[in-house]
């Protein structure tokens, strides 16, 4: 079994601070590539498929030249048949392979909802656990250069609702590598989403293989006044917002959930015990989004600790506009978080 000796990281990851002997600073995109590279190396069952994975540029560098190193049979381009190819990945997984299917936009995944929701997510349960579907669907999500309504969605909240899926959304290079390894090692279908604006972010990442357990959030900054949960790139924005707020004397705690399915409810409720106030900042639409689920968990299980309304921050409830002036309005950012915190603390 290729993965029996895999080192499982159980402590909080170092976040832009630690430096050790097996660590170096690399970008989020490089971390993704390294995870794929090492997984391909370690486990012959792994393969990487997707439009442009073997193309010049290698999808923002995340698959760069992997086809040269591991062969064009294991890292390959695919036709524009998103629905069928998702089924192909499922079938390969069913007979013992470990496909990683890469999409450069989640918008295209909507073509494969039938295979993901009706098939991948259900095949284990529907057959009483007799078989399993260990596969990873990676996608780059959100913003870019006036990409407009059909090339910049987040859509993670759709997957939040579907039993049988894992949902992973790292925000640091360290997590990107460790969680991608965990996703490949996992025995179940995993949706792994990477915000495009994270690719150039750098962080300290171990050179070797390591996995990060699912369902463990990370406290990015401790604080006592308000808990800010940031999803994906909003975890970065939340850290920035917390720094702003500190100047005003507001001591925010910042939590990065890292995986949304499974969800670390413990870390949320623990934090609430201290702060009594909760803001959830998401990279997708607000209505019906994962922020609602987190809020509902807090209102059910952490009610006694709540001192103030729970606030959610997300994209405007419209398709993404192309014009940059409207984009500014559409996407949430540091300011929205800062304002929400001020509102909660009546400053």
């Amino acid at each position, binding site marked *: 079994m290729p993965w029996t000796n895999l080192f499982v990281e159980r402590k909080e990851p170092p976040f832009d601070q630690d430096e050790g002997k097996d660590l170096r600073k690399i970008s989020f995109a490089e971390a993704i590539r390294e995870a794929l590279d090492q997984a391909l190396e370690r486990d012959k069952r792994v393969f990487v498929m997707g439009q442009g994975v073997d193309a010049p540029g290698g999808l923002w560098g995340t698959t760069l030249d992997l086809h040269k190193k591991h062969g064009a049979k294991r890292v390959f381009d695919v036709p524009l048949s998103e629905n*069928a190819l998702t089924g*192909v990945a499922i*079938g390969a997984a*069913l*007979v013992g392979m470990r496909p990683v299917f890469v999409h450069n936009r989640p918008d295209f995944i909507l073509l494969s909802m*039938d295979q993901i929701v009706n*098939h991948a997510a259900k095949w284990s349960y529907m057959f009483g656990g*007799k078989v399993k579907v260990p596969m990873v669907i990676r996608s780059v999500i959100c913003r870019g250069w006036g990409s407009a309504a059909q090339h910049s969605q987040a859509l993670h909240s759709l997957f939040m609702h579907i039993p049988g899926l894992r949902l992973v959304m790292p925000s640091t290079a360290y997590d990107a590598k460790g969680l991608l390894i965990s996703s490949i090692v996992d025995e179940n279908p995993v949706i792994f989403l990477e915000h495009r604006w994270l690719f150039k972010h750098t962080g300290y990442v171990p050179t070797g293989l390591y996995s990060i357990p699912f369902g463990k959030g990370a406290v990015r900054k401790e604080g006592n006044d308000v808990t800010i949960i940031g999803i994906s790139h909003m975890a970065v924005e939340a850290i920035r917002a917390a720094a702003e707020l500190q100047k005003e004397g507001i001591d925010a705690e910042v939590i990065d959930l890292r995986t949304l399915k499974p969800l670390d409810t413990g870390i949320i409720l623990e934090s609430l015990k201290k702060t009594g106030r909760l803001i959830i900042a998401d990279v997708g639409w607000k209505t019906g989004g994962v922020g609602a689920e987190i809020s509902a968990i807090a209102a059910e299980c952490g009610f006694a600790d709540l001192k103030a309304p729970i606030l959610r921050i997300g994209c405007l409830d419209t398709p993404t506009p192309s014009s940059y002036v409207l984009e500014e309005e559409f996407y949430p950012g540091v300011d929205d978080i800062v304002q929400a915190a001020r509102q909660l603390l009546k400053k």
Partner: protein
Amino acid sequence: MPKTGIPGKKLIELYKSMLKIRKVELRIEELYSQDEMKTPVHLCIGQEATSAGVCACLKKEDYVFTNHRGHGHYLAKGGDLKAFISELYCKEAGCSRGRGGSMHLIDERVGLLGASAIVGGSIPIAVGAALGSVFQKKKSVSAVFFGDAAAEQGVLYESLNYAALKKLPVIFVCENNFYSVFSNLKSRQVKDNIYLRAKVFSMPAHRVDGTNVMDVYSTCAKAVKYARSGKGPVFMECRVYRWRKHVGPGSDIELGYRSEKELDSWLKKCPVNTFKERLLKTKLLNAKKIHSIDKELDSEISEAFEYAQKCALPDKKEALKYLFHEKDDYALD
């Protein structure tokens, strides 16, 4: 009577395979009104030859994927009878542990890797299993059964292109019974030429009399050889007819969406009886042998139903089980 080129032993095997399917379906039909099989059954009475003919060409290591009308495919591939009937009775001993029902049969030990009730849904999955087989240098072939309506789903064309492009060992088996629920093929597809739509993707594509098990078998045997040798996928359109309702036991001729005359013409081509008569004529079967096969199958079936009726229902407390696999414990690994 022309020589078939198929050994006598194989012919008897084909007969038994079809007969078993027929008998099991009839028994289900008989007992369905007791309301103990609380799952929608799509009987394949009249379509047995495709299941038997195709699966007789496959090895245990080959994969089969099926659809909502999958009883025959399951049985012909060697799926466990008790586990199947228990599944219909919603029992824990069911092949899908009572989670799947009639439309979701599996017997991973004989390569029957599942059934989708989304029309066309299992087609790309079968292509993926073939891709896995190539990766693993296993020489396993992957066969997938689907109805004529699946030829209206875009995913079929995507799958045909991909399987052909990568020369994957897939046997596409379309059971064209001319209906999707109450709708005739003519009202859904511009032309009755499904196999030609596969041929245009550069693969051998055949139209076969799906009521003639020898035709199905011979065509498929060649197809499997072709696919297994790495030449790529093959498509078979088998023309068959569904004798019963779309779902549930009994006839629906009174609804008027198809004519009695049409049904009658197909009843005459009963895949089981026509083949039986042929075997009688060629002396491969005789009254005594027929009787002993009947007896053997009847008692196997009775046993399975008794088993299924008696065994335990799933435990409510385990309603959440099987959603996720926790560790690497997969048999095919």
